């Protein structure tokens, strides 16, 4: 089980309060699909993913990105119990969606990069370290029920 110090929790929640979840979610998922095009395999029914601008402007990508990041918000409210928080979603990603957990790590890192570009200097090495711990914890939690 991942343990977060009070400082790490503060680093995460203070930044999260300033994040526009809808925008950041769309950007994170969009960038995942652009930078790692093989991840598009899960989104055949999303319509036009033929270029970076098509992907970043795609309404289905934006909507789904918002969904994903909103769920991430739940993780932040439950940093001491990520496995419990994501148990059902983990089963879903394994049994119904068939997503390789490597994709969770890729998305987590893309999210960190987006936060860096939004927050600049404020996204210090220590703040990044707290977020890396969180995204790694979320990825592990989502993979936990795989069988």
């Amino acid at each position, binding site marked *: 089980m991942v343990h977060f110090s009070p400082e790490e929790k503060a680093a995460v929640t203070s930044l999260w309060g300033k994040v526009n979840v809808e925008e950041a979610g769309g950007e994170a998922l*969009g*960038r995942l699909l*652009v*930078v790692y095009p093989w991840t598009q395999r899960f989104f055949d029914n999303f319509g036009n993913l033929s270029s*970076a601008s098509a*992907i*970043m402007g795609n309404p289905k990508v934006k909507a789904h990105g918002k969904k994903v990041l909103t769920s991430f918000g739940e993780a932040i409210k439950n940093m001491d119990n990520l496995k419990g928080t994501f148990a059902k979603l983990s089963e879903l990603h394994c049994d119904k969606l068939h997503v390789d957990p490597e994709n969770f790590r890729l998305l987590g*890192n893309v999210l*960190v*990069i*987006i936060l*860096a*570009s*939004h*927050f*600049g*200097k404020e*996204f210090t*090495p*220590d703040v*990044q*370290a707290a977020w*890396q711990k969180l995204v790694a914890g979320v990825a592990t939690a989502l993979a936990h029920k795989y069988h």
Partner: protein
Amino acid sequence: MSLTKAERTTILSMWDKISSQADAIGTQALERLFASYPQTKTYFPHFDLHPGSPHLHMHGTKVVAALGDAVKSIDNIAGALAKLSELHAYILRVDPVNFKLLSHCLLVTVASHFPADFTADAHTAWDKFLSIVSSVLTEKYR
């Protein structure tokens, strides 16, 4: 995996901006690496790794200079980094997993310094470039 013409252009055009802050970027990427992935510090028992340390500054500058060499010979990165490749294979022997970690921290640093330039396409180009550099540096490992 190789860079498209457009990706090469993106990298070359961004490189001027990046190299103007080479020291800061190299130093910060390393600070981020050691903060997020403390296991990477095991390769530097001989360094003072506290933020602000001259060792960090010196080494960060070195790393970015080497990336600059790769950018200047972007059509032949393997040639440009041949000596560094041997160094990593026979002397340093840094486990290959760590190149991904440093690459990620370099991307984070560049994104935080140049958010407007770091579009999704630029992100792709840089991710690919660093991935190629990492392959070259581990090419002679076995």
